[in-house]
């Protein structure tokens, strides 16, 4: 018998249809994956089950949990279910916990509310579940505040809150999307164990097909509010009956074509980083002794040749973004030198950096946050033009912008639009247009596709590859995502705790990692091929 049954669920917010005839069933002890791209209605499905929908939302159809009709349930009945029989884990661990309450209070609160247990008893139970999710008392007493924990640790606390009362159903909405691959693997292991221990049903929501394949017994694929395909994970993904399933699977494994691959040592280096160190002031422990500095980047050397694509991979907090900032001359190294086209850029005044800035551009992770919403595309894309020696006239400027837009697959008419008129993928195209308008020799891309859906991400990777082939732009890709590194990079550098611990051809490092850090990354990275193969064995 099903624990959760969704039949013909439709949802409207105001007059906008969000879900259309969604069907889904889940039995105790089963893991069902709900896959889809952003805006497909995954989270809204979850919030319908929780009955935590936004104000003007209206749901029709039937949602039954354990024999209770959730759409007809009163708020009191829902309060009794939430946190007791149904737990939920959210995407963003950094903001999911109340900053002014201790983790003990936050875990114990639900226990006290549902079981009417006293403070001492609730805290004892909170202690047990925190131990269970991997936050032992010695290092993580109940009196810790969320800001004293890292992202992965906070997500463990959120899971502890959701699982404290051994719910029959756990809904996890992109629980690992904000974490690096090593943490992701740990959190997924934890969820898998909790399912097994308590015969808990798990509804795992993700845009990442590989993660879902590793975890789910069955999966449901959602597109624009409708279920396109549902069934056993292995069969669904091996047969790929629906074209959209096939599209998703292909996009997840997409490797852009780069016929002219780069030969190392073929030219004079474009960028040389030598023995670069970056210290940050540490926390003062005594009034009289100076605080020991924290070394974010420790003696890093690397070179990038013209038209070469280099991936810098590592876990979050390993120092890769700090290194990128120094290469872009946005931050000064404590020691060491950085040379761009043979000229040192360290310690130069801003005016002297102009030529270097012109030939070295950047693409950031978040296509939403990196544009001023009140300016038109023409002005936004033309921004780096002030770096040119000779300032272009108005018409020349418009021509250059139109050309850059054309190169990233947008039209000249997009010039007069505002950023909010574009989708996430189109905005990332805009940031690439902005980066290439000065014809740079090097583009530093900091997690350029990690905020994008798989199909969009495949297109953007293609665009990067095409620009590399056509214009000979060299790339430094900063990422924690090994599929991006595999798809895009000639050479790969693995960074760990501020140091480069491994370097080599991208395929060599990925297939035969030598260092502990690289091994950890490679083994933790979800891989769709591998996951499908394993599922096929298990499910026959």
């Amino acid at each position, binding site marked *: 018998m099903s624990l959760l049954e969704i039949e013909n669920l439709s949802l409207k917010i105001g007059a906008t249809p969000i879900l259309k005839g969604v069907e889904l069933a889940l039995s105790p002890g089963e893991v069902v994956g709900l896959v889809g791209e952003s805006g497909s209605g995954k989270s809204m499905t979850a919030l319908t089950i929780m009955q935590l929908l936004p104000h003007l939302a209206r749901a029709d159809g039937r949602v039954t949990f354990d024999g209770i009709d959730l759409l007809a349930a009163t708020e009191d009945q829902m309060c009794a279910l939430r946190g007791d029989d149904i737990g939920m884990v*959210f995407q963003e661990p950094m903001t999911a916990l109340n900053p002014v309450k201790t983790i003990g209070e936050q875990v114990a609160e639900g226990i006290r509310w549902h079981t009417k247990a006293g403070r001492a008893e609730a805290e004892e139970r909170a202690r047990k579940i925190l131990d269970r999710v991997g936050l032992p008392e010695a290092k993580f007493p109940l009196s810790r505040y969320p800001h004293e924990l890292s992202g992965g640790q906070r997500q463990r606390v959120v899971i502890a809150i959701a699982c404290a009362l051994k719910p029959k159903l756990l809904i996890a909405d992109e629980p690992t999307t904000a974490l690096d691959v090593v943490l992701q693997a740990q959190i997924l292991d934890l969820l898998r164990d909790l399912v097994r221990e308590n015969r808990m049903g798990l509804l795992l929501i993700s845009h990442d097909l590989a993660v879902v394949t590793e975890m789910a017994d069955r999966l449901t694929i959602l597109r624009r509010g409708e279920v396109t395909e549902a069934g056993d994970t292995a069969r669904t993904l091996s047969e790929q009956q629906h074209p959209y399933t096939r599209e998703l699977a292909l996009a997840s494994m997409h490797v852009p074509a780069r016929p002219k691959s780069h030969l190392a040592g073929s030219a004079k280096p474009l960028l040389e980083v030598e023995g670069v160190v970056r210290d940050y002031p540490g926390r003062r422990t005594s009034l009289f002794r100076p605080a020991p500095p924290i070394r974010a980047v420790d003696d890093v050397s690397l070179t990038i040749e013209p038209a070469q694509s280099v991936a810098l991979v590592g876990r979050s907090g390993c120092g890769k973004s700090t290194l990128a900032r120094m290469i872009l001359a946005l931050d000064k190294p404590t020691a060491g030198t950085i040379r761009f086209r043979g000229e040192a850029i360290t310690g130069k005044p801003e005016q002297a950096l102009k030529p270097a800035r012109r030939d070295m551009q950047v693409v950031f992770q978040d296509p939403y946050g990196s544009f001023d919403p009140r300016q038109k595309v023409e002005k936004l894309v033309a921004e780096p033009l002030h770096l040119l020696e000779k300032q272009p006239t108005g018409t020349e400027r418009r021509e250059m912008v139109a050309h850059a837009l054309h190169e990233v697959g947008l039209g000249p008419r997009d010039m007069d639009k505002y950023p909010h008129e574009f989708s996430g993928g189109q905005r990332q195209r805009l940031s690439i247009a902005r980066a290439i308008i000065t014809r740079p020799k090097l583009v530093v891309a900091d997690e350029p596709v990690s905020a994008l859906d798989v199909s969009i991400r495949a297109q953007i990777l293609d665009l990067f590859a095409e620009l590399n082939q056509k214009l000979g732009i060299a790339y430094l890709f900063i990422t924690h995502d090994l599929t991006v590194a595999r798809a895009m990079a000639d050479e790969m550098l693995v960074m760990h705790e501020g140091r480069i611990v491994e370097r080599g051809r991208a395929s060599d490092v990925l297939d035969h990692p030598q260092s502990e850090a690289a091994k950890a990354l490679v083994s933790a990275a979800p891989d769709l091929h591998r996951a499908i193969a394993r599922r096929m064995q298990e499910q026959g």
Partner: protein
Amino acid sequence: MTAYLLKRLVIAALTLVLASMVVFAVMEVLPGDPARLMLGLNATADQVEVLRNQMGLNAPLALRYLHWAGGLLSLDFGRSYTYSVPVIDLVRERIAVSLPLALIALALSTIIAIPVGVFSASRQGRAGDTLAMGASQLGVAVPNFWFALMLIYLFAVWLRLVPAGGFPGWNAGIWAALKSLILPAIALALPQAAILARVARSALIEVLNEDYIRTARAKGLPYRAVLWRHALRNAMIPVLTILGLQFAFLLAGTIIIENVFYLPGLGRLIFQAITQRDLIVVESIVMLLVAAVILINLLVDFSYAIVDPRLRGRQ
């Protein structure tokens, strides 16, 4: 935690010293010789000189500052030029009215504003919210002296529950004194409450959109419990900031209300001292208010640390 408090304390002390220097310097450059002022228009130059020597006005600047600042520390503010009584006696009398008045007004304003803010935020955009925010708009707009007159008319003239004005002194009994302060406190509290309610509402609405509110709801807590237990404390920082500013205002900026109710408060003392060029009284009260504002800010800083653990640093 201690490091945070200690740092705030040191900053507050330094600010106080700096402020005292500024106040002293300003008084030095202002025109007008206190000795000549005290002796009147008919005094000879010799008489003035003798008095100047007596008052220590001919000593070097630094020495005079130290003398004055040392006096402040032992609560010796000097003597009023016009009344020839110690300034501290004048001030003490007035503080006995102004401080309780400010505290009552502040308490009233908080008691009204927080529930209204919570009510409004939890019904954002609905009829109750519109009504409450309309009322608060009115509260900000209505001049408090007019509101004070209405209060007098209603409670003193018509219902005869409280006196219409004046202050019997604390010797007349606590109840009698409180009775004469309650109307002015309400008149002062209302516009403050209106502002505070709006601040509380917008701070709460922002907090209610945070992810951790959703986490708390997913635990099974009802909306009301989430509001009071999770949202309110996070919305407290802007509310505390405004409260601090309001208290400083209530302590000395109440001259109109003091006049309407004929209360012998600090505001009227400053006003009289300024019109009579009684500079030493002005100087003393300004210094006192500066100290009060610094102290209030220190308390607000401490309360931030109580509300938000992230400000305390690592234990």
